[in-house]
């Protein structure tokens, strides 16, 4: 049996964030939703986060800056990025900073669920 995860979904697009949250919830994971980079940093400090799915372009700190900051306090943070279109250098920084991967939007959900399942195994 796979364990239940604490998943942080970060996206300034509420519909996106909430539909993904619902998707993960259906598999009985606990989902925390943040709507910008700053909230993501706060969510990490307040909760034990097993895995994060971060949008890149967001107001109040972009996903990559927020991730780099989180890495400072949580070196083991496991984060994937989701992007519609981002400057390549930003994604490069994310990958160099230890991001696990990048999903392009609209996200291939089967791949997403497979990824979560692997984390939970």
């Amino acid at each position, binding site marked *: 049996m796979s364990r239940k995860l604490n998943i942080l979904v970060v996206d300034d697009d509420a519909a996106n964030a909430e539909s993904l949250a619902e998707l993960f919830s259906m598999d009985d994971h606990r989902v925390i939703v943040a709507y910008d980079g700053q909230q993501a940093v706060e969510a990490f400090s307040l909760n034990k986060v097993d895995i994060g799915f971060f949008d890149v372009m967001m107001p109040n700190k972009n996903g990559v800056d927020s991730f780099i900051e989180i890495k400072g306090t949580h070196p083991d943070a496991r984060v994937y990025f989701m992007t519609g*279109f981002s400057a390549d250098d930003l994604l490069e920084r994310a990958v160099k900073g230890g991001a696990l991967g990048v999903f392009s939007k609209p996200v291939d959900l089967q791949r997403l669920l497979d990824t979560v399942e692997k984390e939970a195994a």
Partner: protein
Amino acid sequence: MAEYMMSQDRLNDPRVLLAILDNLPTSIFVKDAEARFVYSNNLHCEMIDKAEKDLLGKSDADFYAPEVAEGFLNHDRRVLEQGEVDISEEMAALQSGMTMPVLTRKARMVGPDGKTYLIGTNTDLTEIKRREEQYKALSDTVPIGIAQVDENKCVSFCNPLYKVYSGGDGTEELQNALLDKLGKGHGGFPGEACKFETEFSILGQPLRSVIVISSGWLTAANGSRYAIISVVDVSEMMELRRINAEVSRLNKELAQNMKRLKDAQDELVNKGRMEQLGQLTATIAHELRNPLGSVRTSAFLMERKVKDKGLGVEVQLDRINKGVVRCDNIITQLLDFSRTKQLQCAPGDLDMWLSGVVEEEARKLPANLQIEVELGLDGEFVPFDPSRLQRAIVNMMSNAAEAMMGAGEQLHTHDGEAPKLVVSTFQKDGHVSVRIADNGPGIAPEVMTRIREPLFTTKSFGTGLGVSAIEQIAAQHGGRLDIESVIGKGSRFTVWLPIRTVNLAEDEKAA
């Protein structure tokens, strides 16, 4: 002969001879050894307005002022005493007060009576002088140097302009020297009739470009030969011609520069537009993909929720999913087209990479499309940007598949062959090529002329950016895209990439 004999007889009659003398157009007079008139024909009488009877026995001293008469008498004496023939041009003062140019010839003769006489003639030069003046005025005023050249190639006469061209004070020596200069390199000159262009410079004068014309040898009344040469100064014309050539050269240069400027301007504007388009597209991509994401996720959630409930909405959900994919593809094409950033080229085994790309893309194409791969690069490493080149390959493959797409999802070819794509690579002239050939319907000529235009499409869907993106990607690699097609046989898209590309950005990165 009888007539002739008769004339001879008549000539023996002095009256006939006198009548002849009176009708000559020359004035004739005879003076004795003391310079007294002993004969005057009619014309002479007319000229000096005296009847012969008033003349006979008189001398010039009887008619002219002493100093004038003395001048005439000196001449007469020289002829009478020394026997020299005196020829002089003079102005004969007519009794009427008019003057007349005459050629006077005086000679000594011994009459049948053994006495010495002076026989004089005056020939009226009025008409000759008039013509001479006309010719002189012409030769003095024409803008042409004219010279008469004798058989020894010496100038025997020339007009003032020829003298000017000769330089200095226009001495005979200088005139002949000019003749030599003009004839340099023209063997037949001046004896052969000819016309040529030449240049000469005389100390103290600017270089002259001239046209030289020679009449060739002409024969004078006395049997001697002479040639008339004309020298036409065309320096100004040549200068104008040179200026004209310079102006047209400058004009050409100006046109070229303007074209260059316009090209640069166009490029700048185009670049600016592309940058704007790039920003716009990035924004659109970002803004559309978020809602597309939530549409896809929501459809996915619905699918789960209605599963096994027999609501029969699977088809609708499938349509939603396909719509999302199509929208996403359009966004990708827009991004491809507007991407202006530097390629990320790295040398790689093109064949190996290509087979992976084709295999992945083949899965997305209709199953009944046969795909053949013929790789011919033998592991050649070629610098290329994998993500960009993949975009070009995918575009070529999906275009080919779509070209063969009939109604629905059924592929068709013209002659009923199985629909087939051949992906091949080969090397030629320092380039490698990736070719995608299909056996579809081919490209109509009117489509072919526009196929590379951005936004041009024959499909009922799609952005019309596919082919221009392929071309752009090829060009960014320093290569090109060739498109060939035969109606009813199929089409071939070939991307040529240079084997060695100098990518400074890459070099810097490597350093």
